[in-house]
């Protein structure tokens, strides 16, 4: 069965009407992850765009057909550690223990609990949808926000313009926790994303599995609502968001980029980069090239998913 056949038969367990923006990358990610996880799943969606979109329900109603909880911004991985341990004790280790969390809940406030759970190798699939900021509270910067980005806490000013720091590259940090499985994925490369979600679910029965997903955000990034997949694709093609996975401690590029497009090409239609200086653009390009080279050196195999 190819990935489209898989998707067209996999039941959507999320409410059909949720308040994510038009063209939201995170909504796409949430639905795909939970379609593949299926009914035998417990999911946590911490505060953030998805947590606030109605998928955890309203008053006495629920937002999903599977058990769902909104943990704290800061404790998703540790909360799920407890759930996972109890399901191991009950002899029900077949239940998928999953979260779909934003970059703030993952890389910033939630990082301590994430790192702790990863180090303990808790049996969880942790999905981070990285839209590079606190979009639900009004597009503030996070540690994964790219240099030069215009956000509501890194505004374009006459003295300082945009974010002054490079982004934190979380997936590689996570992989160094001796994880069972670690990968990056982009919704533009859906076959690869589906394969990685399936692997992540399988590996989460052995230990901690982490997938860092590129989540384009029309509202915060200021691009046309129909362009999300185009932007995600260019993020991969420019090596801004390289696709790789680590399995059995072996790193592998899953998209071998023979002819990368430039970062200038990637950022040109994205409003949050509209006043990027030449220096910033060069600095991002240099960081991206350097990171890609490092990842290639880590990778042991050349074969790719697509």
């Amino acid at each position, binding site marked *: 069965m190819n*990935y*489209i*056949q898989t*998707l*067209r*038969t996999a039941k*959507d367990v999320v*409410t*059909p*009407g*949720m*308040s*994510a923006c*038009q*063209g*939201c*990358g995170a*909504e*796409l990610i949430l*639905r795909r992850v939970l*379609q593949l996880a299926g009914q035998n799943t417990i999911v946590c969606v911490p505060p953030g765009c998805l947590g606030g979109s*109605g998928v*955890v*329900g*309203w*008053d*006495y*109603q*629920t*937002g*999903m*057909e599977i058990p769902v909880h909104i943990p704290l911004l800061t404790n998703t991985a540790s909360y799920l550690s407890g759930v996972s341990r109890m399901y191991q004790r009950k002899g029900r280790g077949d239940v998928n223990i999953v979260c779909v969390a934003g970059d703030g809940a993952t890389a910033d406030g939630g990082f301590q609990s994430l790192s702790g759970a990863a180090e303990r190798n808790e049996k969880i699939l942790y999905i981070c949808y990285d839209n590079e900021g606190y979009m639900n509270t009004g597009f503030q910067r996070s540690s994964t926000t790219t240099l030069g980005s215009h956000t509501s806490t890194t505004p374009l000013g006459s003295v300082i313009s945009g974010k002054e720091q490079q982004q934190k590259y979380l997936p590689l940090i996570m992989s160094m926790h001796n994880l069972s499985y670690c990968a990056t994925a982009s*919704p533009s490369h*859906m076959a690869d994303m589906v394969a990685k979600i399936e692997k992540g679910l399988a590996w989460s029965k052995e230990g901690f599995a982490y997938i860092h997903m590129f989540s384009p955000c029309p509202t915060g990034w200021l691009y046309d*609502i*129909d*362009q*999300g*997949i*185009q932007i995600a694709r260019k993020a991969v093609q420019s090596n801004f968001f390289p696709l790789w996975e680590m399995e059995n401690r072996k790193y592998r590029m899953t998209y071998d980029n023979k002819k990368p497009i430039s970062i200038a090409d990637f950022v040109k239609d994205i409003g949050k980069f509209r006043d990027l200086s030449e220096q910033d653009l060069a600095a991002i390009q240099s960081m991206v090239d350097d990171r890609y080279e490092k990842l290639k050196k880590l990778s042991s195999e050349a074969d790719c998913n697509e």
Partner: protein
Amino acid sequence: MSERKHISPIGQEGLYVLDTASWRTHRPVMDKNTCVECGICLSYCPVNSIIFNDENKYEITYNYCKGCGICAVECPKKSISMVAEGGEDHG
């Protein structure tokens, strides 16, 4: 409904569903003459508004479609066009 106890905050009285179709300013319309049934549109729809129907065809549904237009942009055959709401009903 038996009397609610209000112990733990739990939601189990049906699904909370928003009328997201009302957000739509443009609706995607599929040209079945040029569609090659590849399913790319289904794979990218953030709302899962595109289904694989009983006749083994891909079909756009409009109950929750927010009208983002990703399907129209991604369709390799350009078989989906965005049509302004308020005109003729294609649903």
